């Protein structure tokens, strides 16, 4: 079964609003990485976390340090250029494989 459950699958936001994406893991993960995929298919890394939180501009990500069973990506003051498909990917304990969620298609509307 899927080890990484990402939600929501699609999201529409008005410009200037805030929202959050979430990935739940069916097992304990040692690290998580968030990406945005552009229209040409390239995966742009946003954050890599082994624990705690990281922030970059209007984006902030957190990785549950206790249970290590979920991660979130917060988008603040959404802009039109934030539109795209966002993916989380996580690595199981013991340097196992790196599995992707099914993505969130984000549309920011004026």
């Amino acid at each position, binding site marked *: 079964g899927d080890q990484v459950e990402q939600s929501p699958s699609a999201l529409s936001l008005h410009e200037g609003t805030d929202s959050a994406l979430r990935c739940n893991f069916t097992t304990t993960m040692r690290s998580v990485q968030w990406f945005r995929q552009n229209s040409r298919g390239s995966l742009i890394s946003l954050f890599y976390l082994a624990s705690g939180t990281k922030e970059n501009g209007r984006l902030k990500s957190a990785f549950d340090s206790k249970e290590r069973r979920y991660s979130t990506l917060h988008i603040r003051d959404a802009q039109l250029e934030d539109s795209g498909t966002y993916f989380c990917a996580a690595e199981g304990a013991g340097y196992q494989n*790196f599995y992707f969620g*099914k993505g969130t298609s984000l549309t920011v509307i004026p």
Partner: protein
Amino acid sequence: GALVYQYPRRTICKSGTSMRMECQAVGFQATSVAWYRQSPQKTFELIALSTVNSAIKYEQNFTQEKFPISHPNLSFSSMTVLNAYLEDRGLYLCGARAGGNSDYTFGSGTRLLVI
């Protein structure tokens, strides 16, 4: 910074023929390389994980006989799709990392069309 160059960007092959794609890591040592296929529905499937000096580990539904991978050094990896058929269509991506505590950097993908 860390970059991964992947080529070709796009390829069309006739059904039953084979094609090879390559990834070159620049700015870091690609200790591990993971190969994925993204379906038209955007789902990522892990094909295999290759770590230098270790056996390449293929996921269920993917075999070395169909997707042979080479990872001869810390900057290069290639994967071939042998006897490609319609179900092999998709975007193939390689991701590389320097070690177990580092992030993955992905190539821009190879889009495979089979006719």
